[in-house]
């Protein structure tokens, strides 16, 4: 199932959080259900992408998303506003998704396990992309490449990449959510980013441009 579709004008999570988010959160806290429903509608696709990318299992992803929103509603009074509501929600959803992933693969995923060696880190694809190579390809095609890349990435590296680069959690926040050290976050992120570059490089070299 496609989780991302293509590349659109640059929109990071921080910039898509609309100005009225604090107003909606305040209204939801005082019991306005429609305000909370609006927050759900706003973020449901993003939260589902996150839970799907972590669990790689549709049923788990849906359950994790549902429970994340339910938990967010139940604990809304505890949200102090010291981070964005969306970031708070991402933390809850990531925990729900991780719980399910660990249940499904007990003992198979050790996020804090040190990475052995760095010989496979050295880049192999060394070809100039030219300016804005992504614009030469159909958006759906790039979306498919990204989905396939995320799916194949080792869970440990995939989750760190999603939380750091897509959801824009800080290194510290990511370490906290995953219960791993800052250096483990950094080494997994480096690995994931370099692999992503290799994959896109191969695609730009072999793909058929528009």
């Amino acid at each position, binding site marked *: 199932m496609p989780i991302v*579709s293509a590349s659109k004008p640059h929109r990071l999570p921080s910039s898509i959080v609309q100005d009225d988010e604090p107003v909606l959160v305040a209204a939801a806290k005082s019991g306005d259900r429609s305000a909370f429903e609006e927050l759900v509608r706003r973020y449901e696709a993003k939260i589902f*992408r996150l839970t799907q990318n972590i669990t790689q299992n549709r049923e788990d992803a849906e359950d994790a998303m549902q429970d994340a929103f339910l938990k967010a509603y139940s604990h809304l009074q505890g949200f102090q506003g010291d981070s964005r509501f969306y970031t708070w929600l991402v933390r809850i959803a990531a925990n729900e998704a991780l719980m399910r992933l660990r249940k499904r693969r007990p003992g198979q995923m050790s996020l804090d396990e040190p990475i052995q060696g760095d010989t496979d880190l050295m880049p192999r694809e060394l070809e100039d992309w030219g300016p804005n190579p992504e614009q030469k390809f159909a958006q759906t095609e790039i979306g498919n490449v990204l989905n396939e890349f995320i799916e194949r990435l080792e869970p440990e590296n995939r989750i760190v990449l999603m939380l750091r680069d897509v959801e824009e959690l800080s290194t510290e926040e990511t370490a906290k959510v995953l219960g791993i050290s800052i250096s483990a976050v950094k080494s997994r992120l480096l690995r994931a980013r370099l692999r992503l570059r290799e994959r896109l490089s191969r695609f730009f070299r072999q793909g058929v441009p528009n």
Partner: protein
Amino acid sequence: MNCKGVILELSNYIDGELDPAVALELERHLSACEDCTMIFDQTKKSIEILCDAEPVSLAAEVQARLHQALRGKLGRTPS
């Protein structure tokens, strides 16, 4: 700093998490090494492409199940 050293610190450099002295060393290497400069630019671009990818809308049945589950809960005031 050699090419391997640059690759190992690339991510920290992109995130601005390098010690200034190490960052300076890395930049000195980049100014003289075309391959590392290309890898640096492409890694940054790759992150941008990943961030720009929009999530697809929820399937109607997934959305319906979510909102049905919420409706039951929203009957109660948040604690």
